[in-house]
Structures are given as structure tokens and as C-alpha cells.
């Protein structure tokens, strides 16, 4: 019969099955704690990666431009997988028969695509010739509609001219498009989650045929996106971009002649008939354009332009050439050695000289070059900035003498709210002859509603206009000269007066160096200019969305680290439990081990045998633990999902079990268990053989060499180190904070265990005598001190669990009952976000008017209801104060978004809010009474405010640190975090001053974020007023308290989970106590029998055992609690720490442990110790 070592080990393990099962259980718990924590991190990352797949479907790269460009470019790309698209944010409404709002989704995604988008034959076929739209499940649910019902899209109208410039259209901002819902994509449809924007939510989406949306928006052949599954198309894409894609034109004399014909030559016969141009072209120009035959044909026009207007003009359809593009063009002109002029054309409401007034006149700011071309002569000491030149037209009522003051009245170039008129005076410096071959009307860019009107009287400008002021001479001028400026000032003066963040010039003229331009000049200039323009600045770039989202999904909060960190004490507890159980298990076998040693086996051999057996158990335990880890991870994820404040996590979070994590869990848990087992085995075999044979304990009842004093010294040292960590420099760095938290806690906990060790040695010397409780307590103390290592391990277990539960509690966020000015809500009751900017903001009475106007519009078909609502809301809105903030869209930087925010949302804070102040700050770089002054533009840095949690956990930065963002042109800009909010509504964004905001994002217009200071008793009414009144803008209205609570609930979800880990740790701890107790009862049954024989009642015996373990419980929990309290001292935590809750928690944990002890001791009631004693 063969009997191998392996068989021996297996047989022995089987023989000691009960003990080994206990050890195995400990290993299972340790493995599950560690691997489960890792799996939670994997699952979060994996779920986010799945979300990326679901969001992008087949799309890998996309151009998501901030402006429309030619669809034709997609064809030119020559890539089959590239499809044109329009992707927009809009609100979707359902309106009733009377055109009143029924339901609305304030922020939905509009995806306008051709049939090629649907890589599914069935869907492509259905999509072809579709005249309606498809909704995804979220949209249908949100709108509570089904197929064959109509929805109304509210989309911001495309506008070339910035709406906040004085020529911008501020009235007609929202486009309404009614579409029939042809189909609803259910939740399981792979296209239902399509979303090219970051974030976890599957947004409400409406899919519209591209051509249909283009028609509805009136932008035929224009798109703002290209979707593709391929990569590497950027270079070709860039090469295909033209100036028109940047909304620029570069036209020479021939082009302008062609434009003229394109505009007026309705019969396309290359000849302009009188009926075609009458009233549309300056009458003074017509003779100059006519050929010798008296006709106006293309050759004669081109000839005129070549002779008299031989320049190329760079203009923008936005009216103003953006400063960035103007600079690039200027650089190129310098580089090419060309002569050029910059021109700034503006509109004056009045030109006045004494009492003579000319209304609504074009004024041009011209540089020295053009001044010279127009024959302006200035003396050497003349300051052109103060001069004005008037066109010398016959009917002009202005007859100033040289040096007379001529004033100009005009609207300020940037309009927020109502246009503001201003007046400036200039010195009359001379006349410019009204020769139309010299001063051409094309100096003024085309402006629909003005330059295309037949008469001045019929102008339809976007600013206040009074056509009653028009006199016949003015109309005559319009007929003769049309948009030829009536006055000229110096360019620099014009830039100062009328330049804005949108631009300071309206055109750049390039003149030939010789008499004519060289062949191919225009193409060369354009190509070279295009090379200088960075396409990224307007979003003309193929973004690798898949890579970016995947990066965001992996680089967010390190959940594995977080969970392993917070599971550290749990893992430690489980390992201590393993060591404890293995120790108890071996102690039972002490005499056997002693016998084997006595029979001649070496310590090493016995240790190896024990280790092999232990490793066998560890291996099985770890394998089993991996299975339990999966169940444990499911539990944790479920807990997180159910505690998350919205449904986003519910939808995406699923368990992911990467094989490498299982391997890592196996290896780590196995090594840790093996170390615990090895140490215990080694200690056992090193005990004297005789002690072992007698069944002696691993803990000798004789005191070892370490005296209480040395333990006290060690304890004090650790305590000093622990408290010392509290005095480390205060930092906003959350890693340093975590180091302080765990460092101080760990050191104080260790110190507590050293003190406990010293205490055990001290109480060991207390004499056991006395009567009643005193005597029994002394006996209990002695018993506790008897197995000091066991007692220390048990206390360590309990203290670890208590540490986690108590330490986490102060961070719990309670709904702050303070909603005052200096609270997280800043004293604001409501926060409103709109999808479409409200141009004038909502501050003041005009803002209330905007809301009431919106209420009226929302009830278009029901005037009676409109009146009722307006009356109702007028009353509640009268005392409401609104602060409007500018908004640059980006990633939600709050903890609600598990993706790493690569481009956070930015808010521009107006001066009014900066002056008002308020909100709760966790820290600021300078101690100011009103920290908002730090956002003042006069600061040397671009200061920014951000929520403390956001900066620590999402942005991974801190107070006083720099943070790089990209401005609208793609240029890196540095922000400095000068203030950190605490528990505020601003968790999703970064705040900077409005003036700085406009420098970074000049194209962002209007306001999209509003803070509402309102009386709390009318809150629901006010909320409804904003919802209805701003429904066209896609308003999302939230109570600020709800927002703060929502963010807090995320933190609390994590904290609850970590406390849950602590509770599991406590369970493990109490299991340890129960195991120790059970073991004590078993090994001391003879002793208990003796006590019975000596006259101890069962109550006495139970009391002694209970006192012993209750004290251990108390000390263990006490050490953990003390360590926890020390560790949270240096951190800012909830202002109203629930000391009562903490005390209850502590009491609850103690009571729970006590009950476990009582349950374990219940068996003593029926035990016959005398029989046990007899057996021995």
C-alpha cells in the first residue's frame, strides 16, 4: 500500500474537517472582499466601456462642428463609410390641438442622417423617403407619446451674424419644426442609445432624415457633422475645406461682377435689363457699367470693376471678420508683401451737424491706405481718430465747415437686453467726392433686411428703427448710392467704437502690387490662408470619439483603488480572521503536533506539513472565494445602483468578470492567506514540545519578554506619529488627504493595539480575589489576558471594522437645512438651464417679460388660458430676482458622471452675482469677505471656482492649482482654482468671470444658466412659470435644494457602501469573537466544570465569559472608534456631524457583538461541564 505525502496531507485535512472548514470560510471571506472590490472597479469600467460601444454603434470618428458647412465635402472625401449628418441639441414638445404645450423634453438630441446611417437593411428601407421622424425609447417615454403622433422640435435657428452683435437677429431665435413620429425604437434596439456626446445617460433622441431637416431649417446641402467608422481622414478633410466653410468670401473684380449678375440677371442672358436692376443698383453706378452699346453686360461690368475696383475683398457672412481670422489674413498679406486695407463699416442712427440730421447712414472706418485712395489729406500733426469726412452728395443737409463738430449716434456693438444708443463727436475734416467709381457701395457687406431693400423706408433691421424719420432726400440717396457710406472715420477709431468680441473689421481689401493681380492669385491666396487657419478652432476635425470615450471611461475615478482602499480594513479583518481561525484550529491539534515532534520530526518538517495542509485549504478557499466574490460584487453593484440618484447607473451598470482580475484575486488572496497560515504554523512548531504535548496553548501563560513599558513606548510612538500626521500642512490634494486619513487612522489604531497589549499584560497582574461582580470581573480580566495574541487579533478585527464604520460617517451629507445666502444653494431656490440661449438674460423686469411672453407663446391656440396663466405667474414672479450666467457646453464634471470629464462645462459669472456673493466655500486662495471678488477680471490669473468634490475626484486637481482648458479657437488657456465650493449646486461645472468667459468663448451668446432667488412659498408656481415660459428654450428647471441633495446622495451612496464594507468587517469581527468564544468554551469546558464544582452557577460562569469577551469587544470597538475620530479630524467633513448617530452606531455595534457573544454562550446553559471534566 502506498501512502504519499499528498495523501497524508489530504487525509489529515479531511480528518480535521471542521477546523479546516472554519479556516476555509475565513479565506473565502478574505478572497471575496479583495476580489469583489476589484470586480466592482472592473464592472464600473467595463460598463462604461459597454456604454461607449452602445453610444457609438458603428461610429468611430466624427466631425462635430460648431457651424454648418457644405455637405458636398463628404462626397469629395470619397470614403464610403463617411456619412453627412446634422447633430443638434433641441427640445422636443408635444402640443395639443390648440397649440398648447402638453409634454416636453428640454434637452434632446436631434440626429439627422441619411439612410446609410442605418446599417440594417430593414431600417434603411424604411428610412428612405421617410417624411417623419423616429424616436428612441427614452424620448417616447419622456414625451408620453407613441407612433403617428406629432412632435415639435424647438431648435435654435442658425444665424450667421452673432445675435449679440447689434445687427444680430434677437427676435426670431427659435425654429419650430413639426414632425410625425413614424416609429419608436425600443430600449433593446441598438440604435436607441446612439449618442456622440460624453455622459452616461442615453439621451432622448429624435432621428430625422437629413434632407428633411435641411429643408425645414432652410439650409439645403449644409451639415454640421460627418460620421465614419474609418480613421485617418483629417488631412484630406482639411484639404477639402474652403473659405466658405469658414463663412468667408474672397472676391475679386470678376467675382463681384458675376455676383451682380447672379443677383439681378433673372433671365440668365448675361445682360442686365432695366427691369432687372431698376431700384436695386445705385442709379449713379448704372451709366458707369453700361457698355458703349448702352447695355450692361458681363464684359462691361467686369471691365468697370477691373478699372475702378481692382481689389480682392475678404469678408465674412458673419458681418465681422473674427479677430482670429483677421489676424491670419493680415499675417498672410504681410508675408505675401501685398498692399491692403482694413475696413469697419457700421450704421449710425444719426449724423448730426448743428441741427441738421441725416438718419440711418452707413459709416465706414478706413485705414490710411484707403483714406489716401479716397483723396483724404491729413496734416502731419493731425490725429485721424478725431476726424470725420463726409460724402459730398448734393442733397446732404450737412454743411459743416472744417473743424466743426459732427456727431454720430449709434447703438453699441454688443447688445445684451435692449440696444443702447451712444453719441460721439468728431471734427469735420473734409468732403469725399460722391463719385461712385471711387467710393463703392460694396464697402458695405450684404445684410439681409437692409442692403437688399429697395428703399430706406422698407428696411427691416433687427434694431429699433423709425422709418418716419426718413426724408425724401434720404430715399434719393438710397436710390443713387445705396450702401455707399455717408461718412468716414479713421479705422482705429471705428474699431474702438464698434469693434466687439465678434470682430473689429468687416472686410480686408487686398490690392495688386502692380496694376493687376497675377494669374492664380486668388486660388493661391485662399490656399495659403486656409493653411494658416486651424480647422480645430471651429470643430472641423475628425475626433476619435471611440478612443476619447474609452479613455474617459477608463480614466475616471479609480474605483478599483477606491474600493480596495475602503475594503482594506475588511480584507485585513478577513486575514486576521484567517490567522485567528487557523490559530484556533492548530491549538486544538497542539498535543498531536507535540507528539509528532517528540517522535523525532523536525520543526521544519512539521511546519511544512501544517503549511501544506493550510495551503490546500487556502487553495480551495480562494477558489470558492472567487465565486463568492462575484456574488459579493453583484451585491455591491446592486447597492450602488439602487442608491444612485438617477436611473443612468441602473441602465448601464453590469457585472464584469475579467479573467485577469480573477487571477489577480486568486494570487493575492492565496499569498496573503499563505502568509497568515505560515506565520501561525511557524509559531506553533516553535513552542516547546512538552507544552504542545500537554495541549498547551500557543500563548504561554508565562509572560514573555515584552513588558508593558516597552509596549507603552511603542504605543506612544505610534500615537505621536498618528497625531503628527494631523499637523501635516493642510492640503486640498485628495491623495494627501487620503494619506492623512488612512495614515493617522492606521497609526492610532496600531497604537491602540499596543496599548491594549500593555493593558493585557497589566491586567494579567491584577489579583483574582474578592466577592461577587468584583471577583468575577477580575477573573474575566485574567482570562482575557491569558491568550493575549488571540485577544489582540480579536480586538484588531473589531477595531478595523469600527474604524471604517465610524470614520466614514462624518462624511455623510445630510440635506442642509440652511438654504441661506451662504449655503450650498447660495440662497437661490431654483436653478434653470436652457438648451437655447436666452439672449438678453432674465435679469430684471425684462427677464420676467420674456418669461411671461413665453407663457403666452406656449398657449398660442388658447388665448384665454394664456391670459390666465400670465396673470397667475405675473403675480408670483414680481418679487423674483434672477441672475443669468453664460454657459459653454461640455462634460458634466460632477460625480454623477462616471466618465472622466475631458472638457468640463464652463459658466460665466456676471458682475451682479460677483457683487452679491454668497454660497458656501470650502476654501479660497485668499481670505476675502466676498470670495467672488477673486473672479474679478483685474486679477493676474484667470481665477476659477469649482466644487471641492469635483476638483478632487473628477478633475484631479486642487485649490490654487492650474487647470488647462481650451478656448473657442482651440487655444490652451490656464485657469487657477481660487475657490472651492462645498455642497453647492455647481458640481457639474467650472465658474469663471463673465468678462473672461467672453474672451475665451466670444461666439457663445446669451445666457443658459439661471439662478432664481424666489420666495419659497410660491416655489412650485415659480417653477412652473419658468418651465412653461422658457419651454421654447428647452428649460430644465430644478429646485436648488434637490440638486444639492442629488449630488449629496451620490456621495452618500458611496459612503453607505463603504460603511457596508465596515459592517461586513464588523460581522467578520464578531464572527471572530464568536469563534474565539466557542473555542474558549470548548477548550475551557473542564475549567468551567471546575467552576461549577466550586459552586459557580451557570449565570456566574456565563457572566465571567461574557465580561471577558464584552470587554474585548468594547476595547476593540473603542480603539477603532478613537482611530476613526483622529483620522477624520484634519478633514473637512459634514458641518453637522451626527454625534448622536455615531454614538448609536457605536452602541449598536457593541450591542450586536454582545448579542453574538450571548448567543455563543447560550450553549453553556445546557453543557454538562462536570461530564467534560470527568472525560478529561
Amino acid at each position, binding site marked *: 500500500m502506498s501512502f504519499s505525502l499528498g495523501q497524508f496531507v489530504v487525509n489529515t485535512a479531511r480528518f480535521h474537517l471542521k477546523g479546516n472548514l472554519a479556516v476555509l470560510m475565513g479565506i473565502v471571506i478574505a478572497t471575496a472582499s479583495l476580489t469583489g472590490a476589484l470586480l466592482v472597479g472592473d464592472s464600473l469600467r467595463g460598463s462604461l466601456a459597454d456604454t461607449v460601444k452602445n453610444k457609438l454603434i458603428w461610429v468611430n470618428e466624427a466631425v462635430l462642428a460648431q457651424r454648418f458647412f457644405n455637405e458636398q465635402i463628404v462626397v469629395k472625401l470619397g470614403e464610403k463609410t463617411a456619412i453627412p449628418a446634422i447633430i443638434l441639441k433641441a427640445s422636443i414638445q408635444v402640443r395639443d390641438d390648440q397649440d398648447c404645450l402638453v409634454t416636453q423634453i428640454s434637452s434632446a438630441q436631434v440626429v439627422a442622417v441619411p439612410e446609410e446611417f442605418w446599417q440594417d437593411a430593414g431600417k434603411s428601407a424604411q428610412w428612405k423617403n421617410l417624411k417623419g421622424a423616429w424616436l428612441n425609447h427614452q424620448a417616447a417615454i419622456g414625451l408620453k407619446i407613441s407612433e403617428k403622433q406629432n412632435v415639435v422640435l424647438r431648435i435654435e435657428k442658425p444665424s450667421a451674424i452673432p445675435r449679440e452683435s447689434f445687427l444680430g437677429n434677437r427676435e426670431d431665435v427659435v425654429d419650430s419644426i413639426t414632425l410625425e413620429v413614424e416609429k419608436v425604437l425600443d430600449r433593446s434596439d441598438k440604435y436607441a442609445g446612439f449618442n456622440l456626446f460624453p455622459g452616461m445617460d442615453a439621451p432622448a433622441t429624435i432621428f430625422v432624415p437629413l434632407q428633411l431637416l435641411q429643408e425645414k431649417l432652410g439650409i439645403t446641402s449644409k451639415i454640421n457633422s460627418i460620421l465614419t467608422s474609418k480613421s485617418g481622414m483629417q488631412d484630406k478633410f482639411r484639404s477639402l475645406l474652403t473659405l466658405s466653410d469658414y463663412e468667408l468670401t474672397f472676391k475679386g473684380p470678376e467675382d463681384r461682377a458675376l455676383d451682380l449678375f447672379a443677383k439681378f440677371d433673372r433671365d440668365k442672358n448675361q445682360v442686365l435689363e432695366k427691369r432687372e436692376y431698376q431700384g436695386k443698383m445705385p442709379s449713379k453706378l448704372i451709366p458707369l457699367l453700361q457698355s458703349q452699346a448702352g447695355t450692361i453686360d458681363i464684359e462691361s461690368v467686369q471691365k468697370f470693376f477691373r478699372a475702378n475696383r481692382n481689389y480682392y475683398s475678404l469678408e465674412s457672412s458673419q458681418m465681422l471678420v473674427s479677430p482670429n481670422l483677421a489676424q491670419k489674413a493680415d499675417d498672410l498679406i504681410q508675408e505675401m508683401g501685398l498692399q491692403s486695407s482694413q475696413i469697419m463699416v457700421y450704421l449710425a442712427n444719426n449724423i448730426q451737424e448743428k441741427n441738421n440730421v441725416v438718419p440711418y447712414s452707413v459709416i465706414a472706418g478706413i485705414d490710411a491706405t484707403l483714406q489716401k485712395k479716397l483723396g483724404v489729406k491729413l496734416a502731419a500733426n493731425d490725429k485721424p481718430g478725431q476726424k470725420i469726412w463726409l460724402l459730398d452728395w448734393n442733397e446732404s443737409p450737412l454743411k459743416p465747415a472744417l473743424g466743426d463738430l459732427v456727431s454720430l449716434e449709434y447703438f453699441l456693438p454688443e447688445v445684451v437686453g435692449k440696444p443702447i444708443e451712444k453719441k460721439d463727436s468728431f471734427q469735420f475734416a473734409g468732403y469725399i467726392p460722391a463719385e461712385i467709381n471711387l467710393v463703392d457701395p460694396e464697402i458695405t457687406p450684404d445684410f439681409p433686411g437692409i442692403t437688399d431693400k429697395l428703399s430706406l423706408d422698407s428696411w427691416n433691421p433687427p434694431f429699433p428703427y423709425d422709418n418716419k424719420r426718413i426724408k425724401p432726400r434720404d430715399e434719393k440717396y438710397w436710390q443713387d448710392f445705396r450702401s455707399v457710406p455717408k461718412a468716414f472715420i479713421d479705422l482705429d477709431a471705428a474699431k474702438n467704437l464698434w469693434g466687439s468680441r465678434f470682430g473689429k473689421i468687416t472686410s480686408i481689401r487686398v490690392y495688386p502690387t502692380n496694376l493687376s493681380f497675377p494669374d492664380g492669385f486668388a486660388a493661391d491666396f485662399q490656399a495659403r490662408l486656409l493653411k494658416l487657419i486651424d480647422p480645430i478652432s471651429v470643430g472641423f476635425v475628425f475626433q476619435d470619439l471611440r478612443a476619447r470615450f474609452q479613455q474617459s471611461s477608463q480614466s475616471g475615478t479609480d474605483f478599483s483603488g477606491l474600493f480596495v482602499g475602503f475594503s482594506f480594513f475588511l480584507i485585513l479583518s478577513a486575514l486576521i480572521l484567517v490567522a485567528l481561525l487557523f490559530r484556533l484550529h492548530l491549538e486544538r491539534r497542539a498535543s498531536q503536533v507535540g507528539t509528532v515532534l517528540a517522535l523525532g520530526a523536525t520543526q521544519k518538517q512539521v511546519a511544512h506539513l501544517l503549511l501544506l495542509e493550510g495551503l490546500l485549504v487556502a487553495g480551495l478557499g480562494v477558489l470558492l472565494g472567487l465565486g463568492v466574490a462575484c456574488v459579493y460584487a453583484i451585491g455591491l453593484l446592486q447597492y450602488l445602483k439602487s442608491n444612485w440618484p438617477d436611473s443612468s447607473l441602473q441602465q448601464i451598470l453590469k457585472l464584469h468578470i475579467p479573467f485577469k482580475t480573477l487571477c489577480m484575486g486568486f494570487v493575492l488572496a492565496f499569498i496573503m492567506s499563505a502568509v497568515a497560515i505560515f506565520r501561525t504554523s511557524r509559531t506553533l512548531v516553535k513552542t516547546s514540545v512538552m507544552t504542545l504535548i500537554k495541549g498547551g496553548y500557543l500563548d504561554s*501563560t*508565562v509572560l514573555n519578554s515584552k513588558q508593558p513599558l516597552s509596549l507603552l513606548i511603542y504605543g506612544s510612538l505610534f500615537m505621536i506619529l498618528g497625531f503628527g500626521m494631523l499637523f501635516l500642512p493642510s492640503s486640498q490634494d485628495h491623495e494627501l488627504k487620503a494619506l492623512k486619513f488612512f495614515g493617522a487612522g492606521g497609526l492610532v489604531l496600531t497604537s491602540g493595539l499596543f496599548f491594549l497589549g500593555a493593558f493585557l499584560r497589566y491586567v*494579567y497582574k491584577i*489579583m*483574582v*480575589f*474578592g*466577592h*461577587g461582580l468584583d*471577583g*468575577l470581573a*477580575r*477573573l474575566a480580566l*485574567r*482570562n482575557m*489576558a*491569558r491568550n493575549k495574541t488571540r485577544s489582540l487579533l480579536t480586538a484588531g478585527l473589531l477595531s478595523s471594522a469600527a474604524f471604517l464604520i465610524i470614520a466614514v460617517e462624518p462624511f455623510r451629507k445630510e440635506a442642509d437645512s440652511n438654504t441661506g445666502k451662504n449655503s450650498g444653494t447660495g440662497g437661490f431656490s431654483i436653478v434653470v438651464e436652457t438648451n437655447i440661449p436666452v439672449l438678453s438674460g432674465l435679469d430684471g423686469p425684462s427677464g420676467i417679460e420674456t418669461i411671461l411672453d413665453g407663457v403666452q407663446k406656449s398657449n398660442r391656440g388658447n388665448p384665454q388660458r394664456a391670459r390666465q396663466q400670465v396673470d397667475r405667474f405675473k403675480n408670483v414672479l414680481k418679487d423674483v430676482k434672477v441672475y443669468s450666467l453664460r454657459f459653454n457646453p461640455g462634460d458634466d464634471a460632477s460625480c454623477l458622471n462616471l466618465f472622466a470629464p475631458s472638457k468640463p462645462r464652463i459658466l460665466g459669472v456676471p458682475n451682479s452675482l460677483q457683487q452679491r456673493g454668497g454660497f458656501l466655500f470650502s476654501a479660497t486662495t485668499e481670505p476675502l469677505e466676498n470670495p467672488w471678488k477673486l473672479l474679478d477680471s483685474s486679477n493676474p490669473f484667470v481665477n476659477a471656482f469649482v466644487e471641492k468634490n469635483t476638483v478632487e475626484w473628477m478633475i484631479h486637481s486642487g485649490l490654487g492649482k492650474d487647470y488647462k482648458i481650451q478656448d473657442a479657437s482651440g487655444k490652451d488657456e490656464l485657469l487657477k482654482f481660487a475657490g472651492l465650493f462645498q455642497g453647492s449646486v455647481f458640481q457639474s461645472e467650472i465658474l469663471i468671470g463673465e468678462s473672461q468667459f467672453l474672451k475665451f468663448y466670444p461666439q457663445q451668446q446669451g445666457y443658459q444658466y439661471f439662478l432664481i432667488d424666489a420666495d419659497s412659498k410660491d416655489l412650485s408656481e415659480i417653477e412652473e412659470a419658468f418651465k412653461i415660459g422658457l419651454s421654447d428654450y428647452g428649460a430644465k428647471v430644478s429646485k436648488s435644494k434637490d440638486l444639492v441633495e442629488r449630488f449629496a446622495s451620490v456621495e452618500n451612496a458611496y459612503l453607505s457602501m463603504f460603511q457596508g464594507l465596515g459592517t461586513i468587517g464588523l460581522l467578520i469581527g464578531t464572527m471572530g469573537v464568536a469563534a474565539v468564544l466557542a473555542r474558549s468554551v470548548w477548550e475551557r469546558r*473542564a*475549567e468551567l*466544570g*471546575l*467552576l*461549577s*464544582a*466550586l*459552586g*459557580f*452557577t*451557570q*449565570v*456566574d460562569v456565563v457572566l465571567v465569559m461574557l465580561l471577558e469577551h464584552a470587554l474585548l469587544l468594547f476595547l476593540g470597538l473603542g480603539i477603532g472608534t478613537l482611530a476613526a475620530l483622529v483620522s477624520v479630524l484634519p478633514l473637512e467633513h459634514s458641518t453637522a456631524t451626527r454625534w448622536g448617530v455615531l454614538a448609536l452606531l457605536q452602541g449598536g455595534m457593541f450591542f450586536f457583538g454582545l448579542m453574538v457573544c450571548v448567543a455563543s454562550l447560550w450553549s453553556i446553559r445546557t453543557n454538562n461541564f*462536570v461530564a467534560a*471534566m*470527568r472525560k*478529561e
Partner: protein
Amino acid sequence: MTLQVRQIRKEFITRSGSLPVLCGIDLDLDSDKSLAIMGQSGSGKSTFLHVLGGLDKPSAGKILLDGLDPLAMNETDLAHYRNQKVGFVFQDHHLLPQCTVLENVLLPSLLGSTPKVEVIQLAKDLLARVGLENRMDHMPSELSGGERQRAAVARALIMRPRLLLADEPTGNLDKRNADNIMRLLLKLHEEEKNILIVVTHSLELAKLFPRVMTMDDGILAQAVSSN
């Protein structure tokens, strides 16, 4: 008569049926008398001692010690009875390893009401009387087998019991130590004037007692006089 035992019967229920261990034992002992009980292993002598000491309950019968009937007592009174009236010395010393010799002796006094100073003095006297005056602060593990059993004897006497029961107290000791312990028990019995009942296998040691009885299959019978 101080100790009266009448018709004590004890049966154990086994898988093969009822197993009689004590078969109607009668015994009367005065307060200053001692008795040695001999018998083979399994004859029921230890069970009888446990029944007398209130550690085990008989199936039938009656016991009176100074007029007290331990079999009629509830658990609390019985524990008090064991503490106040009975002293036990077991074959194994059963000293608590975590307590010193003095503390082990003092253990039963934790339940009593004798003033602390007095009881400590008494314990020290007892230890002196058993020859352990120099060992009272030692741990049990630091004592020899004989010393441990002497300490156990001292512990059994700390409450000045009326009935001192010793269940093979010398079973683990060598001859010399066994003789010493037995003589010590007798000496202390004479000094304390209590009832001493000792169970032993050793005829030689039994001969030290004035009265010896034998237990055979649960029946207690008078043996030959020690003389």
C-alpha cells in the same frame, strides 16, 4: 448523623438499554468521620462521589447533609451548596492555568461573603498547611504534580466545607507524593472536623483510613476494617 445517603440509584441510558451504575446505596457518616471507597474502574465510585457533591443527579434516592437535601435544590441553591458545603479534589488538579496558586485557592471565595482580608489570610494559612507557603505566587505550570494537587486540596478547603470529596486524588502521582497527599487530606480532615470521602484504587492508601468500603457494580459494601 451528618451525612445520610438512602437508596441512591443511578442509571445511564445507552444504545443497548439502561445501564445501572449505582444500585441503591445507603451510607451514614458523622461529621468527623472519613471513609475510603475502593473499587474497580467503572464500578460507580466516582459517580457516587459526584452525586454526593451535587455535581450529578441520581435516578432515585435521598441525600441529607446537615439536614440539607441537595437533590431537592434548584440549580442556584445546588451551586451554593457545592460552594459552601462541599470541597472537591479531583484526580487532575484542575487548577486554572491563568491564575496563581493563591488565586486558585481563592477561587471559590469569589462567590462567598467572607471579608477579603480574612479569606486571603485563610488561603495563605491553608497553603502553609499544605506546604506551599513559598509557592503561592507561582503559576500552576511552575509546580510539580504533587504541589499542584496540594494546591487543589487547599482550594477544596477554602470554604471550610462540611463534606470533602476526593476522587482518586493520587491517581496521577507517584507513590511518595500519593502517600503525602493522602496523609495531608487525613490531617486536614482531623483539623477541620469535616466528613472526608476518598475514592482510591490503592489498598495501601485506603488502609490509612479508619473505614474502607468497596464499590462493586454499583453496590457499596463494607470492607474489612483497616485495622
